[in-house]
């Protein structure tokens, strides 16, 4: 019951919306499409749903070519970023509508509507109209309508973006739970790396219409194949510094010299890109061989109980994600420490050559 995209492309007015996508989605899997705005997430979903026709390539469902098939004949569901429900129908009728169109028996419709409604905790609202509900309740109604009909493919196009933070977390957790037992293919588009991590399953990174990397979420997170993947799957994006390795030391941007220690010793001399997540840089050393750098504070933004500090020197700049509220004046000199065992290393063509070693159970 898998869905396969084969060399799928869609070009509109010379702009590639999706370029050469080759992906397979297995039944019962939860797939996250992660990418920035205009990365092609929605375009890809619309191709999978059959709402748009591909310029090239095929969509296969259970090995059968369904590329030209109309939306009505495919058994799919879609949930949009906007809360889309039939405004003239009650919540009950909204949820029942796909079943009524499938000419299901009345008693069966009633049973399934009530079951789905209670699953999504909107049972008391069945007699109301969608526009009388709060945003979260409206989206729950849309989800109930999508889940009630046992679709083989359920598409979520950034469904939680228009909800407030608390509600988002709550619905996200429920959503994951709802799909644990189901045998359908769930595809979920998001722009947030953290959301992809929270949802788990398989993650596919998209950038400008192309698939950058795909695989189980932790594999992609721990071993991004190139610098682009590393930056896409990190919020804020991973810091990248150019460095040159000789037999004894590493020099960052011909400016900051450090002795080679630990696993970096294995690197053959040459030019590399060194990546480090903003949350791994600290203001105090944690190990003896942390790479110490003198920087200046460029900007310090406080976001909730975290501080995003942008630091720079004459050669490169970095973003640090610090726990707690830190206040630094612009231009203040700081020493930052990069743990050697947290460094990603990419070769000069930006392909991954070294991942941080993982102590079992250790945080990444």
């Amino acid at each position, binding site marked *: 019951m898998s869905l396969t995209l084969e060399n799928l492309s869609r070009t509109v007015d010379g702009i590639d919306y999706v370029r050469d996508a080759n992906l397979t989605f297995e039944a019962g899997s939860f797939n996250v499409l992660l990418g920035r705005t205009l990365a092609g997430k929605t375009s890809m979903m619309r191709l999978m749903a059959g*709402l748009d026709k591909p310029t090239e390539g095929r969509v296969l469902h259970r090995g059968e070519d369904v590329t030209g098939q109309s939306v009505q004949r495919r058994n799919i569901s879609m949930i949009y970023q906007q809360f889309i429900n039939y405004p003239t129908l009650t919540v009950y009728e909204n949820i029942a509508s796909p079943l009524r169109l499938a000419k299901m028996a009345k008693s069966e419709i009633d049973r399934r509507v009530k079951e789905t409604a209670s699953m999504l905790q909107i049972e008391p609202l069945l007699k109301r109209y969608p526009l009388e509900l709060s945003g979260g309740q409206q989206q729950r109604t849309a989800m109930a309508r999508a889940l009630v009909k046992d679709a083989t493919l359920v598409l979520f196009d950034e469904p939680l973006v228009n909800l407030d933070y608390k509600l988002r977390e709550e619905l996200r957790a429920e959503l994951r739970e709802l799909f644990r037992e189901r045998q359908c293919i769930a595809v979920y588009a998001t722009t947030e790396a953290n959301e992809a991590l929270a949802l788990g399953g398989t993650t596919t990174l998209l950038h400008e219409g192309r698939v950058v990397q795909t695989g189980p979420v932790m594999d992609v997170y721990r071993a991004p194949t190139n610098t682009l993947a590393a930056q896409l799957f990190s919020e804020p994006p991973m810091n990248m510094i150019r460095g040159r390795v000789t037999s004894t030391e590493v020099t960052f941007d011909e400016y900051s010299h450090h002795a080679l220690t630990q696993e970096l010793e294995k690197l053959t001399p040459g030019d590399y890109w060194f990546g480090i997540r903003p949350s791994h840089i600290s203001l105090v050393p944690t190990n003896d061989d942390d790479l110490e750098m003198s920087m200046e504070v460029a900007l310090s933004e406080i976001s909730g109980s975290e501080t995003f500090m942008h630091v720079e020197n004459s050669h490169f700049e970095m973003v640090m994600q610090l726990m707690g509220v830190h206040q630094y004046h612009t231009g203040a000199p700081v020493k930052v420490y990069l743990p050697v065992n947290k460094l990603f290393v990419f070769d000069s063509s930006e392909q991954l050559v070294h991942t941080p070693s993982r102590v079992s159970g250790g945080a990444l």
Partner: protein
Amino acid sequence: MRQTRSKNIGITIYILLLLTPVYWLLNMSFKTSREILGGLTLWPQNFTFDNYVVIFTDPSWYNGYLNSMAYVSINVVITLLVALPAAYAFSRYKFLGDKHLFFWLLSNRMAPPAVFLLPFFQLYSSIGLFDTHIAVALAHCLFNVPLAVWILEGFMKGVPREYDEMAYIDGYSFPRFFIKVFLPMIRSGIGVTAFFAFMFSWVELLLARTLTAVDAQPIGAIMTRTIGASGIDWGVLAAAGVLTIIPGLLVIWFVRNHVAKGFALGRV
């Protein structure tokens, strides 16, 4: 306090001035012709329903109403049937010259009806449509369809395309989606459109009178031809006037909610 009172006085005077002709029409319709011609009386001295009785019993009078209502209804129905799909196409699809076509439709309304008098008359006479209800209804469509497309397009654009897609995903076919999902969503727009189509067709006299003779003569035409052997029957004419206003009032009362909501939603 003083300000509100002076405001109230102003409004009262304004409304009185507006209602004077309407009152006078009503006043006349309940008087006998003798009293109307006799001198100034502010209200009927010999209150009578005779004028109304004449209209409701004389076929040459009440047929006028029936004719008017017939072609107005046909016109509203045709206008909506034609304009709904057209407006949907304009709001959803891109096609060659769509913007030009849309503007051209509107420019149809810029010509006064008199311009089309001769072509319509000649055309209808030669194909045997002269003096039929459908003739007047079709002639009015020339003015109503563009306006209807324009109004409806505004309403339809306000419905995100995702609604269409959601319905297809749920399994609706296009016709079923259009009738069961889409039309109810823009029903206030349809109300506004029907109202405008009705208004134009009901008050338009020039085309309606020229394109008809006996069988489909509208009430407006009959009212302008009521010179009997004993001169003009003022009382009956006034009663006819009152009865002509009533359908308009009914329609306004009926669509008032929709119009108020519609004006805020659409672009009109």
